[in-house]
């Protein structure tokens, strides 16, 4: 099922899993299965944070086998335009219908700092490449054999970035190129998001607000220091500090996530939860948020 077909009908919920560092994928798939029926689709990250892992495409294939709807994340860091187009055609054959196209983190942020960063394409030109494939030609203009593939094309945007104008400009460029829905960077500042959406709604594409569960005070402070476009306000950090037991068990993080979802819901078309390993907490968050 394409996410683009769902948006007109309901408030769409997605979550995501990161494949393991190894080839035994069973545990990861079992964890994902806990969310079966609770979310509309599962993103599968692509060597996230530039750390080498089991492949996104193969994981998506296994999810599909187990009756779940995958969103195939494709980053431009590790493959040139030949390999990217080739993998996207492979995805079509596996019945994968949703893509999330990103530029990707730089190689020096990951565990293979000595690797060659590719970035032959970027998020915008990758969207362009997928649109070309959907028209039945590749980037070189050569005709594809048979029926062209058809996807629901997702992209990312970072609504709490400062300055935010370059984000809006690039979002518009992505929409004009062919992006059909957006998932955002983690949101903790609802007001900023609301202001962002006032400007972004003119592009007429569904936006899914990003939720990252706050696991600890340390995590919040780390993100404030190091993660682009993410700022956890002091009042949330204070809330995490208050009840140490609750924070340890994850309860505070769950409550904050659920509250954010409730506050964001009127302003967006869906929610994308990035549990970063806390997949088992997602059902509780959805329950508290009334989804």
């Amino acid at each position, binding site marked *: 099922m394409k996410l683009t077909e769902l948006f007109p009908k309901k408030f769409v919920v997605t979550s995501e899993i990161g494949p393991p560092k190894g080839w035994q994928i069973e545990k990861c798939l079992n964890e994902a299965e806990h969310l079966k029926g609770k979310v509309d689709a599962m993103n599968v990250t692509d060597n996230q944070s530039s750390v080498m892992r089991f492949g996104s495409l193969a994981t998506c294939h296994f999810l599909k086998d187990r009756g779940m709807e995958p969103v195939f994340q494709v980053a431009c860091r590790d493959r040139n335009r030949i390999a990217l187009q080739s993998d996207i055609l492979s995805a079509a054959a596996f019945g994968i219908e949703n893509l999330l196209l990103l530029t990707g983190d730089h190689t020096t942020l990951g565990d293979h700092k000595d690797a060659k960063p590719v970035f032959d394409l970027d998020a*915008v*030109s990758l969207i362009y490449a997928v649109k070309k494939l959907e028209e039945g030609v590749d980037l070189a203009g050569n005709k594809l054999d048979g029926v062209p593939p058809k996807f629901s094309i997702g992209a990312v945007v970072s609504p709490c970035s400062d300055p935010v104008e*370059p984000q809006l*400009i*690039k979002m518009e*460029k992505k929409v*004009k190129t062919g992006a059909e829905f957006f998932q955002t960077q983690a949101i903790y500042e609802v007001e900023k998001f609301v202001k962002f959406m006032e400007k972004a709604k003119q592009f007429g594409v569904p936006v899914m607000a990003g939720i990252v569960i706050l696991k600890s005070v340390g995590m919040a402070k780390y993100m404030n220091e190091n993660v682009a476009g993410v700022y956890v306000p002091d009042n949330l950090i204070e809330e995490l500090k208050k009840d140490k037991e609750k924070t340890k068990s994850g309860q505070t993080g769950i409550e904050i996530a659920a509250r954010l979802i409730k506050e964001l819901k009127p302003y967006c078309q869906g929610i994308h939860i990035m549990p970063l390993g806390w997949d088992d907490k997602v059902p509780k968050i959805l329950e508290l948020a009334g989804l």
Partner: protein
Amino acid sequence: MIVSQQKPFEEILKMLESEKSIFIVGCNGCAEVCETGGEKACSELKKKLEETKIKVNGCTTVDFMCNKLLVALKISRYKEKIDKVDSVIALTCGIGVQSLASVVDKYVHPANNTVSLGGFQGTWPSAERCAQCGECVLDLTGGICPITNCSKSLLNGSCGGAKNGKCEIDKELDCGWENIYNRLKKLNKLENLQKQVKLRDYSKMFPKAELRKTTFYDVEK
């Protein structure tokens, strides 16, 4: 020596499509040797442009446009004329375009593609500014090169990885695209960021050996 080739005239006209009047600046260094700069190339371009509806409000040359100080000195003499035009076109290498763009408050269009630097970054040695990509994109980016200034060499805008204006790979390194955004905003040209989806043609990085040999300094054989 830095080898450049003039962009096709149609491409130059497209760059200037919204301009009514321009000023021409050409380089008397390497570009003159390549016949893409210097008096001759400048007056030829002037003549061709005057056959269109674009008014050429003046023309000058600088001995080495990669030398920011020389550029600033020479340009100051033409300040009045340059103030009156819509934009400036530069007949020089990628480094020369960037040095001119950093000293004038007008939009600077590159007339040339830089195909080989021959290991030489010009006389503005504080940073690598030109990557000899062979299809100069400085016209879209306000005279700041995204290939050398962005750690991912992105062509369609920032990656979203910058924090406080600094690159995700180094907290001391400016985000090249944030600098481009600020420059374009200052020059009222933010619409450039929407203009086209740019895909790099890597084959242009391999100019014919014959072209790379056309230098006075090619004495190694």
